[in-house]
């Protein structure tokens, strides 16, 4: 089965909620609104014809000139049916109602933390949203286009006596 079948199934049930559809080279993508994401994820995971059981990747791209500058891209893959589809959602950085997919896919946990770390987008409903690759006290979000390539913190900003351990009740 190929992805055209999946697209036909999705369009049949969700036609009204698809903003745009197209191709990422050889793979298909659909663009949707962020309010509909949880509904789509539920449909993707549980529909017997689709069975997108793996959230293979989740990342963002920054387009500073757009009014909604962050484009979050989800990479859904079905191990059973062997097809892949991308979902794109545009959002502002300081969006307060951006839904988290952690209730459907465990892999979304770290991916969403990475997007938060690199872009500053906060996912609502994430169990433990904190920085993952950068230190907790890092200033700024490095993968935004207006973040310079060579940025160093000022010497007085570095707290040399900051404790390096984490309290037990936080884990």
């Amino acid at each position, binding site marked *: 089965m190929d992805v055209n079948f999946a697209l036909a199934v999705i369009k049949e049930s969700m036609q009204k909620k698809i903003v745009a559809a197209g191709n*990422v*080279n*050889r*793979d298909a993508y659909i663009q949707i609104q962020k309010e509909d994401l949880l509904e789509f994820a539920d449909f993707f995971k549980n529909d017997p014809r689709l069975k997108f*059981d*793996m*959230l*293979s*990747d989740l*990342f963002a*791209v*920054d387009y500073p000139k757009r009014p909604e500058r962050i484009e979050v*891209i989800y*990479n859904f893959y079905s*191990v059973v049916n*062997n097809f892949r589809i*991308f979902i794109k959602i545009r959002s502002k950085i300081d969006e307060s109602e951006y839904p988290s997919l952690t209730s459907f*896919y*465990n*892999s979304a*946990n*770290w991916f969403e933390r990475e997007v938060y770390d*690199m872009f500053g987008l906060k996912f609502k409903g994430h169990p433990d949203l904190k*920085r*993952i*690759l*950068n*230190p907790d006290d890092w200033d700024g979000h*490095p*993968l935004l286009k207006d*973040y310079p*390539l060579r940025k160093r913190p000022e010497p007085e900003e570095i707290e040399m006596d900051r404790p390096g*351990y*984490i309290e*037990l009740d936080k*884990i």
Partner: protein
Amino acid sequence: MFEYKDFLIETDKFALNVGPSHPATHGVLRVLVKLDGETVVHAEPMIGYLHTSMEKLAEHRTYHQAETITDRMDYVSGASNNLGYILAAERLCGVKASKRAEYVRVILAEFTRISSHLVWLATHAVDLGALTEFLYCFRERELVLDIIETVTGQRMTPSFFRVGGLAMDFHKDFVNKTKDFIKIFPEKINEYEALLTKNKIWLERTKNIGVISAEDAINFALTGPSLRGSGVKYDVRKASPYSRYEDFDFEIPIGEIGDVYDRYLVRIEEMRQSLKIISQAIDNIPEGEYSSYHEYPAYVIPPKKKALTTMEGMIFLFKYGMEGIKPPKGEAYVSIENPRGELGFYLVSDGSAFPYRMRVRPPSFCNISALNKMTAGYMVADLIAIMGSVDILLGEVDR
């Protein structure tokens, strides 16, 4: 006098910090473990100690300069990472490499898989106390790296692939060295297995340890041997073949229950299958050009001979070196089967010579995120076995 209760140690709420500089974490992984006595209740991996923001760096390099970043990401399987990146860049440009180039790419990628699995087996066995295995594995790994060096000039970070083919044709010694290696290596794999596979100590340490079910493995987006150990027959080389993998005949080994021992068996068998692919490819390397410059002169580096004999070849080479290639606007995604799992590259091009965004779908990153699921309920000593069996590489987890 002492009473019995004086000898009881307060065991609840005991936190143990494994790493970041611990020899069994294979790099700078830090795991915060919550223990009840000696049993792991919760294990939280903390990553980022090796973070160098390679995705940001790639946005400030040309397409071919960014290739050198990819093999430094996963420095044990450099050629494999280069392959994924170059395939994504080729798909962006609409370029197809020549058949000869694709065969050499497959051979190098499979050699990389063997060398990566050898490093994994060596370090994993040392973690569990089998030092001889380490010496055996590094002995053969040196042979593999020699062959890779014969072709690419580099042992671990080749950066040998170019959009549309290779940097140069392979060296004349390559075929003979590879054939020699194919002759001796199957016996060596038996040697590794003789030490471990039916070893009582090894079985005690690995059987029924770190079990993860197939559903959980898919839900955590595990790929590679960690997923196949749980019995899911998913391999990108078969599911969506790239770079002429459909020409070769090979099996996908899978495990049964998804414990440490299954993942060990899967990787051992994968080395045999890789060798099978190499022996098929090396016998059938087609004659012809190593790059498809004639079909796609706009994107492919001109051969050096062309530049030294013709005017336009010289101009193209100069432009290529000064400006780099400029793929059309668009996006492309390619995933390949890395030794550690599914490695994906998502490239966004805005029409300039620099990638607008390079997203790496890191296999180790996803694999280690399931560590808590795998370790909860096992002993602290098993944590080391499980971390080893997942085969992470911190350069790629942190990027």
